[in-house]
């Protein structure tokens, strides 16, 4: 490489940093000028809907006082550094992304699967990295965090996995949705064998995910105090619907959970586990899958929800492609626009209006390379 050569990634990040830097020092007039400019760039790139790290949607958030944003990072699958540092670098990148957001999100959802094999060293490392986030963090548990010690270390670090809170007129619920019926005792498995079985997506030995009767009872109880007109946002690691059973892209008691959520007018489920851009709507419930920071998963061979616009195939020659983090903009009316910040690609936004219109309006940018 000659002196002064900058890779496309370096240039991208410098441009983005400069962009956000300018954003911090704007008066209203130059803000509008920049907004127009960035929309023009987006249009020139052939994007129909104005996209994220771009002023238009920030302006939207700033002007609708009742709305707010939260960011997400999910599915980092950390090994300890001595084993493999690739996934650590990815999580650090996501933390940098979120810390760079301006204005800062109200909080950051961590979507589960912080660890790869639920080991103390992995969970502790993850907890340490997440401490450098500027915004408060809301934790969710994934199966990779749980099945070595059945959540002992995770709870020591982060507390109980199931909880709810209210924020700016929205009721948030975080579920523990990766319970599995005991498949290990009868087989005489060690805790690590149990963990590794659950960690394998195509391992048919394990049971299917479920919220379980206790979790559902807790959810019912929690929601009994909430007005049916109050927007509800549910965080769940597993999808809370039935997508593809052989890979556990699946929640066994999804129908029962949906029945508990059905009476509410506006329900949004934000889930992890599937490592891909995933969109579903069942009744009044909108579902959004989160990106992973570690690796993308191919779309399942069947069961893909009709509303899902697939993310373009990922390039294995780039360690970051198909991965990323994201942001959820909750509108004044309590519905959510979900932004997929796919690394080194143009971001994709799946708008509430797209789901509410059952795909008739606000369609996200088209897929040019669908899965094989």
């Amino acid at each position, binding site marked *: 490489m000659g002196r002064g050569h900058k890779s496309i990634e370096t240039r991208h990040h410098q441009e983005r940093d400069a962009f956000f830097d300018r954003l911090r020092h704007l008066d209203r007039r130059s803000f509008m000028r920049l907004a127009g400019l960035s929309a023009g760039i987006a249009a020139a790139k052939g994007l129909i809907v104005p996209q994220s790290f771009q002023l238009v949607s920030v302006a939207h958030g700033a002007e609708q006082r009742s709305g707010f944003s939260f960011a997400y990072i999910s599915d980092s699958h950390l*090994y300890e550094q001595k084993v*493999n540092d*690739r996934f650590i670098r990815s999580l650090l990148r996501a933390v940098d992304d979120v810390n760079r957001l301006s204005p800062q999100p109200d909080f950051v959802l961590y979507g589960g699967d912080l660890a790869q094999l639920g080991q103390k060293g992995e969970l502790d490392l993850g907890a340490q990295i997440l401490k450098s986030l500027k915004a408060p963090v809301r934790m969710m548990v994934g199966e990779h965090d749980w099945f070595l010690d059945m959540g002992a270390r995770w709870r020591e670090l982060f507390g109980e996995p199931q909880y709810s809170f209210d924020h700016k007129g929205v009721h948030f619920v975080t579920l523990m949705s990766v319970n599995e019926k005991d498949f290990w005792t009868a087989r005489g498995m060690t805790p690590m064998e149990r963990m590794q079985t659950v960690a394998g997506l195509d391992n048919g030995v394990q049971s299917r995910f479920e919220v379980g009767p206790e979790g559902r009872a807790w959810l019912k109880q929690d929601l009994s105090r909430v007005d049916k007109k109050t927007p509800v946002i549910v965080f769940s690691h597993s999808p809370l619907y039935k997508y593809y059973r052989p*890979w556990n892209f699946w929640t066994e008691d999804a129908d029962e959970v949906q029945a508990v959520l059905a009476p509410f007018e506006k329900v949004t489920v934000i889930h992890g586990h599937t490592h891909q851009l995933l969109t579903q709507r069942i009744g009044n419930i909108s579902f959004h899958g989160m990106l992973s920071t570690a*690796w*993308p998963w*191919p779309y399942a061979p069947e069961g893909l929800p009709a509303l899902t616009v697939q993310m373009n195939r990922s390039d*294995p*020659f780039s360690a970051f492609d198909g991965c990323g983090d994201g942001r959820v903009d909750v509108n004044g009316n309590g519905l959510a626009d979900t932004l997929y910040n796919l690394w080194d690609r143009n971001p994709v936004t799946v708008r509430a209006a797209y789901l509410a219109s059952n795909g008739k309006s606000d369609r996200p940018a088209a897929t040019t390379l669908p899965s*094989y």
Partner: protein
Amino acid sequence: MTLRTSALVAAAAASALLAGARALAADPPAHPPPTSASGDVMVGLCDGRTSLELKGVKDASQVTPEQARAVADLLMEDWKKKNPDARWDPSPAGAKVAQASQPARPGAKPPTASSGAAEVKKEQGANAQSGHTYGSFSERDQAIWRASTEQFVKEGHRVFHDAKAMGGTVAISCDMCHPDASNTHPETYPKYQVQLGRVALLRDMINWCIQNPVRGKPLADDDPRLRAMEAYIYAQRKGTPLEYGKH
């Protein structure tokens, strides 16, 4: 020996037994082994020269699978002595050749103690053509071939799911990104691999993954692990039309 050559040997043993049973039949043109003075069963190898007397055995259909295996091994040893320059692929570590203890398939006749030579002989009255390796074979032969293939695929499944087995150094196994070998699209190879700037085969991409995300050393073309992984990956795409060059 690889499983493929083992299957051929098993098939050779079966036809050898048939040759013995058929020694008295006039057709088709054959190289019958010499007859035994004591009326014992004689087994001839398909080279038409090597033969073996089964001492004390008068009925070929009473030969157990274990005896047949031993006979095949002896004949093979003999053949190898006569053909010292013949080359054989090394056997994959831990691989065993499928034997007759197959689970019964629904609707299939239960396997008999012998290779099914008697049944084939009965069917020879039917108006059907004969052939060489595939001239006359029983359901049991097919079960053996199928089991041997499945065993090869199973070995591939093992390597595919085991970071250490393929020489990985960072605890990454193939299934982490490719559950059920999804998104490996073997049917699209050979194709121009844009990132490599040349035409690639499936095995080139397996080795690319081993070198990069898995951070291991590429496997040689004849490495049993590479061969087994290819078998596993293709097996997952059964029924998918071949579309070489597809992007």
